[in-house]
């Protein structure tokens, strides 16, 4: 029983870590977006405000995949262990 609970907790923590690898993608994407925005502003300083707005919008959209990973990670670390341990304990009690 203790071993099973330990496996559940450990795997939840591992899964959280693996899920947050998705944070790499938005990082690269946003970096590219900001680099391009810098180039655009350097070329045309008068278009700074519209470039900044568009860049922020693009960054927000690019961030979405990372935030999906974050939501899954939060669910895994705060919600899943309790649910799974409860499920395990209930089934064990039912078998007895």
């Amino acid at each position, binding site marked *: 029983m203790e071993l099973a609970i330990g496996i559940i907790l450990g795997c939840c923590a591992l899964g959280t870590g693996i899920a947050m690898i998705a944070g790499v993608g938005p990082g690269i994407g946003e970096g590219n977006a900001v680099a391009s925005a810098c180039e655009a502003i350097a070329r045309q300083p008068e278009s700074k405000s519209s470039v900044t*707005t568009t860049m*922020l*919008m693009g960054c*927000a959209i690019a*961030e*979405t995949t990372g*935030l*999906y990973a*974050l*939501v899954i990670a*939060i669910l895994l670390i*705060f919600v899943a262990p309790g649910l799974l341990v409860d499920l395990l304990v209930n089934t064990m009690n039912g078998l007895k």
Partner: protein
Amino acid sequence: MKLNKTSRNFKILDAFYIAMMILPIIFGIVLQVLTKPVSEGIAITGARVYFTIPMPVQDFPITESQVNSAIVMVVIFFFCLYITHGMSKKIELKRQHLAEMIVEKVDSLVKENMGEYFMGFAPFIIAIMALSAFSSLLTLFGLYPPTSDINIVGGWAVLVFFLITYYKMKCGPINYLKGFAEPVALLAPINFISEFATPVSMAFRHYGNVLSGSVISVLLGSALAGLSSMVLGNLPGFLADVPLFQMGIPAVLSIYFDVFSGCLQAFIFAMLTMMYVGGAFDLETYKQKKARKSAKNKQ
């Protein structure tokens, strides 16, 4: 006229508005202090449930996020009353400049992103922007920000989804169904999924940003507490309890996560609302359809 503006009644009303802007926040803080359970150390928790109203199908809980968003609504309502109080054609009060600036900015934003047809959307856009920004800024008072609860943000996203569907339906249900078969009929299932992915991604984006900020703040706070107890822990007396590293450093992070990120997410939510709703409606098709209909009626 000048005397009229500075008269006693005017000032009393002003003071009432300002008091009503501050009192709800104080009420929220008092409520939190009274109901917060005493906990050891720093913990990451969701919205607390104050009480539940029994309902036939499912109990209806009154949570912290609902109460706090009601507080935000009251504050924004009296803020609007305050800045529009004493308006006149010849500007006499400084706050009228602020009110006019907000209205002009939002009008130009809506005109730029949605077009002339959607000018009626400007109040809705500024309402959603103010609600979202003030909700996120509530963390500065130590209250639970309603935007880090997915139920609140999900409600706004569902509202936007209904708006999008309404404006797509406006050109006729056949046109709406035809939109799913763009560019190839084979892609219809994917288009159908992406229709529902819009509100989900909007809600997750806003809630994830605010929640990740508070989680990182809590983690950093506990890490700094550990660091200062490690450095000063061996000192005698009260010196061991001095929060050396917890002073100042979390405030710098709070500027980014609470102030900047909260305002940015409010702006992005409003921008995405404008883009999705504006993009869902094809004015040309609508005009053609209307012209055809009126021609039919004349015959």
